């Protein structure tokens, strides 16, 4: 079953008197439980594509279905609910709420869910588990300003995973992480991908991230130019696929 279906997606951005055609007609289907990497040079439209899938932006033209639901006709409230309940987003630059401490940042989306029927204690417990999984247990009371860039990124990852979304979108998720921490996070994601059937879609340039992907979508000038399995892509790119979950099974919580 396809959890994401995009047909003839076009996205234009006005730029002064000209129009930038960020996406020029994208067709993309992603099966539930997929682990997809989107690759392409800067300005090719990777982030725009992720934004459309994550209901952060709407296309100028075309159809986007998330879990079978057409989102291009939804209003802001419904789009926000999809972001809250179905999608976890890890931004390229880790955005945390500066006035909340680490654990409060992680539990933030759970607190927004009025329908989750979890008690405060349950919410706190689930957030604590996620924090442990990203290796930041001892920083639980720290505010974002007291954390390193990598630690903040891991908080953002924990926050994206805490709601157990159907889809996790990540824009350069390991950009601020050292290779060891990055590997441990990716291992965690892979684990969730297998156990929870969570669909992961990454935008990345990092060959180490690509090693974890099942499929790679290559995008250039707003168009998908290739969609292939990751092994083939890595072979073509001259990178040997060697998943490294064992190497970073227990992520460290040190400051970068």
């Amino acid at each position, binding site marked *: 079953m396809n959890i994401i279906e995009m047909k003839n997606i076009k996205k234009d951005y006005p730029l002064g008197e000209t129009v930038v055609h960020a996406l020029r007609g994208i067709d993309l289907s992603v099966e539930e439980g997929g682990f997809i990497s989107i690759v392409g040079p800067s300005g090719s439209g990777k982030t725009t594509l992720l*934004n459309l899938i*994550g209901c952060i932006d709407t296309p100028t033209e075309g159809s986007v279905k998330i879990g079978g639901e057409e989102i291009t006709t939804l209003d802001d409230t419904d789009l926000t609910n999809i972001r809250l309940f179905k999608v976890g987003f890890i931004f390229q630059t880790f*955005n945390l709420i*500066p*006035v909340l401490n680490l654990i409060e940042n992680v539990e933030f989306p759970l607190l*927004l869910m009025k329908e989750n029927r979890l008690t405060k204690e349950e919410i706190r417990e689930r957030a604590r588990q996620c924090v442990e999984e990203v290796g930041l247990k001892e920083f639980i009371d720290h505010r974002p300003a007291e954390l390193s860039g990598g630690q903040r990124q891991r908080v953002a990852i924990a926050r994206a995973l805490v*709601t157990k979304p159907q889809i996790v979108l990540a824009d350069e998720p390991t950009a601020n992480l050292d290779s060891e921490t990055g590997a441990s996070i990716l291992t965690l994601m892979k684990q969730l991908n297998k156990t929870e059937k969570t669909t992961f879609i990454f935008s990345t340039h990092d060959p180490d991230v690509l090693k974890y992907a099942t499929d790679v979508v290559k995008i250039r000038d707003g168009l998908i130019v290739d969609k292939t399995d990751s092994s083939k892509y890595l072979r073509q790119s001259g990178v040997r696929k060697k998943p490294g979950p064992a190497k970073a099974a227990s992520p460290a919580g040190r400051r970068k």
Partner: protein
Amino acid sequence: MGLIIKIAWRNIQRHRGKSLVVGIILFLGAMVMTIGNGVVSAMEKGLKENIMNRFTGQIVVMSSRQEQDNVIFTPLGKDVEVIAGFDKVKKVLSSQDCIAKFLPVGKGLTLILNDNGDVGYALVLGVRFEDYQKMFKNNIQLVEGKLLGNEDRGILVSSGSRKRVYDEQDFWLQPEGVPLDEKTLTPEALANKGRLDVRNSIVMMGTSQENTTMDIRMNVTGIIRYSYLNEFWKNFNLMDIESFREVFNYVTANDVVTEVPKDKQKLLDRDNFDSLFGDSVVEKVDTGTKNYDVSKLMGRRVVRKKVSVDSGAYNLIFVKLKDPGAINSSAEKLNRAFAAAGAEARAVPWKKAIGQLGDIAMIMRGATIGFVMLIFFVAIIIIMNTLSMAALERVSEIGMMRAVGAQKSFIAGMFLAETAIISFVSGGAGIIAGAVTVAVLNSLGITSENHILQLLFGGDVFRPALDGMDIVIGVVELALVTVLATLYPLKVARRITPLDAIMRD
């Protein structure tokens, strides 16, 4: 809700500078507003109390033929219509449960004649003086001489009128048998003390509504001033009602007519040469009716022994109510009763009757409220600007919140909570500071001779005061300011999208 409050409170602490700016503005605004409310409240209360209790009562009854409701400060001293059929009006007033007491008075403008031809004027109220004092809480203070008894004849000249008479007609009025007191002389009179033309009586000429005139000499019994708002009432002199009626030729069918022997009639009317050739010198008045017929009776001369003041002619009736708060409803009730009884009278609330004084008070009130509103307008603009800037500086934070699933209402609630907390703390402190200031100002008992300030004070002493309702109004105004000041920043914050945050990064 707890999450919103938590984030809002921490944001206030995080953005201390902006919170402080907004807080100080709200503090000052709330303080000025509270003081303003105290002043306005005291002014209204003071004016109401002083004018109602000491000058007019809550309701003023006048002739239904009187065109304008403004009967106290009539333009150019224009005469007030005579109430026809006072008996009927009195019966209606006496039968009303809502009325505590009432006092009929004559009111008019007389000329003051001088031997040298100079003419001045005097506003006079014709009253039974003791009744007047009882009705209006001994509002008349004696400066010199003595006050009138109910049956006494004479005029009580206000110190304001005495000064004006001296300024305009060059003679100084002094009660008979009372030596000149330098302390009571005006600076001009004091400078001319040796050559002062001191007089114990005054020749007044009144004009009837039929344009006949009568002049009488009145003994100055006393010099008076008003305890409250003397600056506004200083031109009103009080004379006994009998003399008042004489000078204005108000003669009624109820007046007792004395049959005078024929031999004395000629002597009494010796200045009327025509009458010497007539059969009857004294006209008889139709006493068969109790109703007062102005057109028939006014202006006629009769020889009177004693006037029945209770059933005579009056211009106004000041009414005090048992419930001073039920002015409009009581006036309406009275008017219905007058109509039902066929009485030619109209009841109007005191505010309408005092005309321009009420208007000035309204203007003063409006100006004070306007000043407070101006302060708030400025506060709203500054707060609005500060919060809008704050919203724009927090695009990443707000956009990220929206990206992870916060609805626009959550963002709005967060902003509103931030402003509400600042408003509650700072505004609350401002209201308390304002209340303390009002209490201090009240205790100082500031006085002023300036009549505009007296209006603002609501009396001679500045006694700003706040009651529970003023505080409630203050809190409501503060809430309104908070909401108004937050509306635009809320709009700005609500418009921030996750995409804005991403693009900014």
